């Protein structure tokens, strides 16, 4: 697409090309909008469920390429312009994916380093190895009194910690999030629903899941408060929560 011209003559007009491209881009946009609306007809929707997201991304890349290539003339313009624009574009995409992979690592810790195993859980309680509190929570004389106090206070302290540390994955109301935290408001518990078991799960984390070992950042008092609060959520069955997972208690 070279438009070399003599001095004094006008460059070739692209008017027609622009209008056609505008029509094509409009059609593509209407197709894009139609995709989320397909949910209305579940048969078509589920038939190609895995295809919709890649299709939207491909259409977006097409539009991007058309505007940059034709409206901005980068396709037929000098290489220097291409280098100036495309290299930072790739750098931006690289940082985008780097940040993305970081988020996966951050929220799904690898390895069994400090997480509990099924054997540990069978005993119901494993003393924390970090952050103190070697005694089981029920061994404390003040355990019952502390629980009653917490109950009277509406488990406010535990709720506070829950909101800042747990709601990220378990949702503010404890209903859980797909792929992240389980529903804490039903009556099903994969690793036990007694306070001691909850205390253990919270302090030790669960291997192979997004649940971290909170004993690294909370002391036993805090862990206990959260366990009390989580226990208090039992059976609330908030709306839109995750389905029941694990044995009923």
């Amino acid at each position: 697409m070279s438009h070399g011209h003599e001095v004094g003559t006008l460059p070739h007009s692209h008017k027609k090309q622009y209008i056609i491209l505008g029509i094509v881009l409009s059609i593509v946009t209407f197709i894009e909008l139609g995709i989320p609306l397909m949910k209305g007809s579940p048969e078509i929707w589920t038939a190609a469920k895995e295809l919709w997201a890649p299709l939207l991304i491909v259409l977006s890349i097409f539009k991007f390429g058309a505007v940059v290539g034709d409206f901005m003339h980068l396709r037929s313009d000098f290489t220097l312009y291409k280098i100036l624009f495309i290299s930072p574009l790739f750098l931006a995409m690289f940082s985008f994916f780097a940040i993305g992979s970081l988020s996966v690592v951050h929220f799904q810790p690898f390895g069994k380093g400090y997480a509990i195993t099924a054997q540990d859980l069978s005993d119901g309680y494993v003393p924390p190895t970090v952050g103190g509190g070697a005694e089981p929570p029920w061994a404390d004389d003040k355990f019952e009194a502390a629980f009653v106090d917490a109950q009277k206070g509406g488990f406010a302290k535990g709720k506070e910690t829950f909101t800042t540390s747990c709601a990220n994955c378990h949702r503010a109301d404890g209903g859980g999030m797909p792929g992240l935290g389980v529903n804490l408001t039903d009556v099903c518990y994969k690793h036990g629903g007694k306070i001691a078991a909850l205390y253990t799960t919270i302090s030790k984390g669960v291997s192979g899941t997004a649940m971290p070992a909170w004993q690294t950042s909370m002391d036993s008092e805090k862990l206990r408060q959260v366990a009390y609060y989580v226990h208090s959520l039992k059976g609330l069955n908030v709306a839109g929560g995750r389905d029941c997972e694990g044995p009923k208690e």
Partner: protein
Amino acid sequence: MSAHAENLIHDDAPGHEGHGALSENNFLGLPNIKLAMWAFLGSECMFFGSLIGTYFFYHGNSLGGPLPKDVFSIGITSISTFLLLMSSVTMALGVDAMKQQKPLTARTFILLTAALGATFVGFQVFEFHEFYTEKHLALSTSLFGSTFYTMTGFHGTHVTVGVIWLVIMSILITKKKLVPGKEAVNVEVMGLYWHFVDIVWIVIFTFVYLLEFLK
């Protein structure tokens, strides 16, 4: 700077679009202003890349609602998206008319582009207002609020700057302070900026809005 070697190289490179303001071409025969704009747009790629990346890094990690699905209205966003896309067509037609030495046609298209852009900003103001007052989503509400408003707010600011630029350019054309043909590169560079703002929205619309509705 040797860039001021007047008319030393005049628009004779193959594939060149045929413009070039006097004495403003560099040693490669490329207009400095256009080279600078492409370099700037390259840096803008990284700017918006990090804003969009940050949005996705924190996506789904808000402590509480409202969540994207609670606030997004696909109808309103679709209309404004369509308007912005069409403004790219009118912008391209404006640049083309300027190169064809038809300044009045160019001005009409430039003003039309400005009007479409201003309508887009209007829709965004309406959207932000609704999110803030009715859906109770503020900049400080959650990670979603912070990242969403920062990302789309910066984009809206870019559109606003573009609208101001378009209006100024149309005034310059009216006052005959912009020589059609020769100084068409000034309009072309403005067009590059405008199209860039459009492609940023193409990405945001698909990745932030449409993909949200697939879930």
